[in-house]
């Protein structure tokens, strides 16, 4: 049973890998076809939320899935991104694209600051700090009325435009935008994962002391992880604000943090496919089980508990069954040295 399921998985993975460029092109074609598909408003909104939460999941995944630092305060970053973008656009009339970038950069800076305590704290202690951070951000948004307009929130957020053409929820182009952002984020996360940076992060997650002994500057990489995670979340926040006419502090509460965390854990820690699946599951579930009324949250909770019991690595959190990918350069270098590229058995003496 185990063997055969492994073989199926292996076949599936090598199939996906072989046709990865085909899938990428297909994704792009479908993305740009969205506005012409005649999707209903409900479906557009649902798909937007799924892509948005997949992106938020990817952001948090950098921190939890790669570096092993658990944050319960990502709604704080999300809020900072959304408010930065919204305030820049409404108060200073900054162009959306610049505001979006600045939202990411500013959130990344806050991420840097929040990363500092991570050098001294670990495990649950760090999580508590991030939890506090989320509450502090929420408090500031509510109290700093001269800037954030307090509980009334920021109103009249303009829609982004491309050469004068407006992207709205209604015409479906905002969905195109978030799908593209999600795609770029996913590719960027994979690029980071399979590099020196990603290996350093994962080494820290597996054994911080040993990582330090291998010469990895653990402080630097933990902060970098916070910065990257906050940047992605800030961009997602900036996007979120333009999907709405107004944002208010209540859009970014502890529950939002938990929802993002659930996406990461249900989908599969450390994977990109898991973020998309987790976001889809957690957004669709309440829709499909609407007939259960209040009971759906009980079922929802039960689902999470069962998940943790029987599949703690997450729904799609399997380990790759594929061999380690040797780049074209590496294969060429091996060939030039006259060495085989396939794994070799040990020489028997």
């Amino acid at each position: 049973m185990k063997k055969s399921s492994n073989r199926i998985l292996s076949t599936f993975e090598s199939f996906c890998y072989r046709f990865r460029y085909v899938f990428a092109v297909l994704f792009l074609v479908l993305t740009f076809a969205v506005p012409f598909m005649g999707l209903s408003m409900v479906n557009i909104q649902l798909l937007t939320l799924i892509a948005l939460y997949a992106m938020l999941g990817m952001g948090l995944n950098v921190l939890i899935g790669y570096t092993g630092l658990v944050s319960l305060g990502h709604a704080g970053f999300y809020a900072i991104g959304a408010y930065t973008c919204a305030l820049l656009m409404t108060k200073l009339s900054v162009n959306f694209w610049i505001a979006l970038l600045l939202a990411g950069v500013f959130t990344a800076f806050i991420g840097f600051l929040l990363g500092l305590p991570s050098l001294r704290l670990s495990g649950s202690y760090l999580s508590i700090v991030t939890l506090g951070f989320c509450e502090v951000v929420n408090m500031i948004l509510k109290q700093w009325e001269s800037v954030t307009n307090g509980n009334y929130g920021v109103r009249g957020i303009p829609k982004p435009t491309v050469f004068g053409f407006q992207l709205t929820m209604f015409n479906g182009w905002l969905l195109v935008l978030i799908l593209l952002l999600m795609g770029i984020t996913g590719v960027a996360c994979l690029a980071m994962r399979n590099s020196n940076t990603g290996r350093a992060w994962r080494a820290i997650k597996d054994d911080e002391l040993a990582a330090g002994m291998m010469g990895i500057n653990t402080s630097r990489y933990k902060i970098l992880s916070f910065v990257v995670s906050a940047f992605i979340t800030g961009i997602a926040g900036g996007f979120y604000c333009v999907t709405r006419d107004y944002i208010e502090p209540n859009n970014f509460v502890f529950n939002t943090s938990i929802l993002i965390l659930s996406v990461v854990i249900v989908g599969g820690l450390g994977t990109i496919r898991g973020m998309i699946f987790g976001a889809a599951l957690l957004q669709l579930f309440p829709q499909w089980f609407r007939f259960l009324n209040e009971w759906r949250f009980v079922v929802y909770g039960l689902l999470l508990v069962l998940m943790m019991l029987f599949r703690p690595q997450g729904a799609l959190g399997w380990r790759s069954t594929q061999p380690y990918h040797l780049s074209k350069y590496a294969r060429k270098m091996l060939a030039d040295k006259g060495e085989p590229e396939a794994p070799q058995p040990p020489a028997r003496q």
Partner: protein
Amino acid sequence: MSFLDAKNITMQFGGLTAVDGATFHVDKGEIVSLIGPNGAGKTTVFNMLTGVYHITSGEMTFEGQDLTKMIPQDIVKIGISRTFQNLRLFPKMRVIENVLVGTHIRNKYNFWDSLLRTPRFRREEAEHTVRAIEILRSIGLDHLRDAFADSLPYGEQRKLEIARAIATDAKLILLDEPAAGMNPAESAELLRFIRELKDKGYTILLIEHDMSVVMNISDRIYVLDHGKMIAEGLPQEIANNPRVIEAYLGGVQKNAESD
């Protein structure tokens, strides 16, 4: 001046003196063993050398550079790398990735290079990958290249730790009980590999309990007991030294040499 020089190094934890004024040196190209009964302070010496602990007093130099104030990251960079008595691999990473983490400090490309996959990234990453494969081949682990570290048998995990230490481009490698948990065939294989390392120009400082390994491989041996160096010399001298026999071989492990 020797390659590695430690003079009167002392490590105190509160009232406990774990290492008490130990003096030793390692010359380039040597295999030196550090032996002693359990709790003698051998691993503490390794932790002092690699900057895990800040030593209480004494002097340590490596190629003339003062080690006493250095942090672990800098010590790896100047060429000292180690393995751990209790395995400390990166269990959820692949075998080859574990070795690639060893090459981390030799990387010159930066974060943006990896994000944009620049030619510099591709070239360097390929160089390190090839080097990792070569190291794995030399230690006989290449057939497990794609496996995840936690799926390896114990003996192979020990080898992987050595491979990872080599990948840092260390000149001096500290091996903390590399043969622990290996069967006689495996430890013979390991012996051969450590000799090969020596032939390639590596210098090795070794903690080991397996006397068949220690006596066969060492150029010189130091004996530590209760934090003090009680003897040093050639394997033959150590085996016949009455103080050593009393402190170490004469105790519980009387028959250790016979197997």
